[in-house]
């Protein structure tokens, strides 16, 4: 073992939060609000909590205002259920939708700068999939802060935690959960700047590490979203639920992967291939560009597969065009100024006179660490794992099933953050004494292996190969053949990764060492996604199998993946909670396995 690896300190706290995005800090703020003396430590891999991915969410935050004369919580619940392609859990939907407005008020009362209407009250906007009266018309249900809703939320949750004496450990990664007699008692932490391992013993531990978008080549996600949370959980023998459910946005801008919003198509933007053909007519003759997201994403991917894409020589990706040149100046200036601005800023082109390159962009991971409706982590038999909780994009309770509605995930962060905070307090009440036990861990073995490995492979190249492989075969289109091939190829990539000598052996702020660890996480999550996708021989929500294009009732269940090791993956099932349907209250029939058609 590498003799420079040592535990340099052992810290004790009541609550350890691994990941200081919106979810983690909403939880921290709740705990500290209710019980200010709680000792809370929050980790972030980023340089600072404010740099978390939550800060980049733009659009809005869904919640039914009880003062709204038209909108009702039951409609929001229905939209979420239908949107999920009937794979969300109804107990979770109900809990979250019921407490949504209360949480908006929490944010507002604590100083979030929501956009206002002329009367000074919160403005609301519409979002795809949110409707009144079970699909009749669009609902104005999303509150927002201009085009920076996530930032407003992040600033508020961070500020509220800071105010209450939280201890932040920035640029510190949770590498491994610690267990004692089946109970999670903390985490091993590697402090990147100092290059030191520390051990944190905690009464309760919350995983809130965010998404895993970096699995794919084009993503809207930030650089830190490498699926660490699910990988750490899988490594601890805990299951990941529905990893195959990944949402792609049809039109990500080449390069930064940022969303070129849906609006571009609704104002009349036309998708074209390399022969300038408006190809949507072949895929959706009636709706064309206005067809649902997933259909458009598949149409774009099909064109690229059929060699009708264009290669970006700068970013080395194939793409199609979105043509906005025919739109009147007024549309450019009044209806799509932000997106036009992004094309100008990041691609140096003028959408008024030039074609804009787009490609489906991986956007959101619906699945994650398996939890119950209270955010308590579960093992594969759905037994609670004492002391361990998971929230936010890294977790699956599940609110989103196989397809997330826009604006529902920010809502999930604040509501589940609060619920988990309450659960943590109750758990701490019943915890007898501080765990000071020594526990086993494997991180040193892993890091030693990274530092001492030999071989000419390059981490960057392996990551690129993995992203290309996943984008090609496990992206918007999936087939038995492609998935099987991918699983074999992932094993090879893992072998290559293990034979990679690092150029820099220092422990302090060694970006290469971090990337090596992240690569293992990305490969682990990729393997879980691919195996689950192979197993699910149907199409549902964002998971589309070319060879099984319909939804199949035989798969009306969640996927549970456990990984004994990288090469040993087991797939199990978890029942979908149908409690709203089973309660037989008014409108219960809307919560059956209905068709997801718009």
């Amino acid at each position, binding site marked *: 073992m590498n003799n420079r690896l040592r535990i340099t300190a052992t810290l004790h706290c009541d609550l350890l939060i691994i990941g200081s995005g919106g979810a983690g800090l909403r939880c921290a703020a709740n705990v500290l609000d209710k019980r200010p003396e709680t000792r809370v430590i929050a980790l972030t891999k980023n340089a600072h909590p404010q740099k978390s991915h939550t800060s*980049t969410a733009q659009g809005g935050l869904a919640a039914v205002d009880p003062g709204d004369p038209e909108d009702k919580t039951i409609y929001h619940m229905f939209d979420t259920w239908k949107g999920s392609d009937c794979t969300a859990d109804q107990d979770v939907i109900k809990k979250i939708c019921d407490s949504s407005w209360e949480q908006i008020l929490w944010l507002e009362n604590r100083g979030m700068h929501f956009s206002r209407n002329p009367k000074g009250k919160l403005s609301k906007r519409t979002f795809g999939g949110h409707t009144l009266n079970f699909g009749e018309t669009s609902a104005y249900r999303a509150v927002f802060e201009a085009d920076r809703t996530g930032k407003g939320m992040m600033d508020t949750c961070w500020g509220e935690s800071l105010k209450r004496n939280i201890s932040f450990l920035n640029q510190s990664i949770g590498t491994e959960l610690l267990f004692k007699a089946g109970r999670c008692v903390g985490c091993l932490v590697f402090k990147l700047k100092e290059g030191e391992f520390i051990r944190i013993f905690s009464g309760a531990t919350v995983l809130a590490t965010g998404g895993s978008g970096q699995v794919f080549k084009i993503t809207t996600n930030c650089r830190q979203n490498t699926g660490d949370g699910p990988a750490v959980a899988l490594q601890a023998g805990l299951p990941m639920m529905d990893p195959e459910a990944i949402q792609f946005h049809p039109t990500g801008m080449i390069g930064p992967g940022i969303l070129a919003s849906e609006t571009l198509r609704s104002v009349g933007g036309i998708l074209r291939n390399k022969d300038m053909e408006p190809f949507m007519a072949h895929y959706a003759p009636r709706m064309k560009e206005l067809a649902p997201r997933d259909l458009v994403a598949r149409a774009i991917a099909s064109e690229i597969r059929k060699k009708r894409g264009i290669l970006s020589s700068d970013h080395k990706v194939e793409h199609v065009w979105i043509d906005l040149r025919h739109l009147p100046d007024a549309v450019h200036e009044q209806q799509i100024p932000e997106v036009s601005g992004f094309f100008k800023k990041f691609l140096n082109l003028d959408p008024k006179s030039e074609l804009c390159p787009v490609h489906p962009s991986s956007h959101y991971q619906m699945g994650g660490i398996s939890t119950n409706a209270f955010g308590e982590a579960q093992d594969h038999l759905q037994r609670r794992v004492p002391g361990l909780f998971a929230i936010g994009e890294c977790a699956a309770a599940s609110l989103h099933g196989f397809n997330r509605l826009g604006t529902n995930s920010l809502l999930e962060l604040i509501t589940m953050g609060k619920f988990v905070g309450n659960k943590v307090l109750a758990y701490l009440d019943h915890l007898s004494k501080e765990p000071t036990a020594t526990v086993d861990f494997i991180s040193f073995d892993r890091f030693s292996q990274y530092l001492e490995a030999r071989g000419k492979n390059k981490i960057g190249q392996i990551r690129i190969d993995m992203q290309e492989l996943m984008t090609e075969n496990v992206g918007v289109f999936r087939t038995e053949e492609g998935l099987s091939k991918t699983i074999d190829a992932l094993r090879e990539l893992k072998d290559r990764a293990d034979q990679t000598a690092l150029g820099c052996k*220092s422990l302090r702020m060694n970006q290469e060492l971090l990337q090596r660890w992240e690569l293992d996480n990305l490969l682990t999550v990729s393997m879980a996604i691919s195996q689950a996708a192979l197993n699910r021989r149907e199409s549902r929500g964002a998971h589309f199998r070319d060879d099984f294009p319909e939804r199949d009732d035989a798969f009306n269940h969640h996927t549970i993946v456990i990984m004994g090791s990288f090469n040993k993956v087991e797939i199990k099932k978890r029942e979908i909670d149908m409690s709203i349907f089973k309660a037989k209250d008014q409108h219960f029939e809307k919560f059956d396995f209905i068709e997801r058609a718009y």
Partner: protein
Amino acid sequence: MASHYHITLKIRRYDPENRRSWIQNYHLEAGRILRFVDLFRKINNEQDPTFSWNSSCEHGQCGTCSVKINGKPLLACELLVENAVQYFNTPVFNVEPLEVAPVVRDLVFDLTKAYKRIDQVKPYVISPANPPSDQDEYSISPNEMKQYINATRCINCFCCSSACISSHRNFLGPNAMLASMIRVLDPREKEKAQRLKILYGHRGVYRCHSSRACSFVCPKEIDVAHFVALAKAGRFNDPNNE
């Protein structure tokens, strides 16, 4: 314009193990719309995996990738190769970390330490006024919000702090002043006295000597100097705002 450029990045590197600092030259063949973060990644993937740099969202929303290019603080994710060549009129670029906090390695500086200045102005509502009722939000008219909403767009990239000569000494810095002013103007904040004390205290706005460098470099195009000037003119001391 050319489709490709031969670029030289002269990167200031720092190794914390032996506290050695040096300039390393990297020669790159770069497409015209690659951004500087793409160039950094290209260096990692093709030439030198040991070079460290910071970023997160990589689309100008988080303020993590701030660097100095030919002396100008900016976001590396927003600088395209062809714009850089044109703006600086050269294909050779000096790349350095911002000096607002100690450097950890290469271009990575210690943002946690830089943020200490923001923490000092208490970037939250210290003492919230009572909302109209439990079930209600505050009413804040769009006109009232207009006074400070631009300041809330700040992403704490610290470019302004880097450009501001005063903030290298005792001044908390332009972005800290913005964070402070927001809550002075926010009608939901009751605790105005403490706020004004920070704003007008010995590390506050009077340290500014109106060079406007902050507004010039802000990637969010916030007129930071304007806000600071308003505060210096005593605008926020107005009893109507208390």
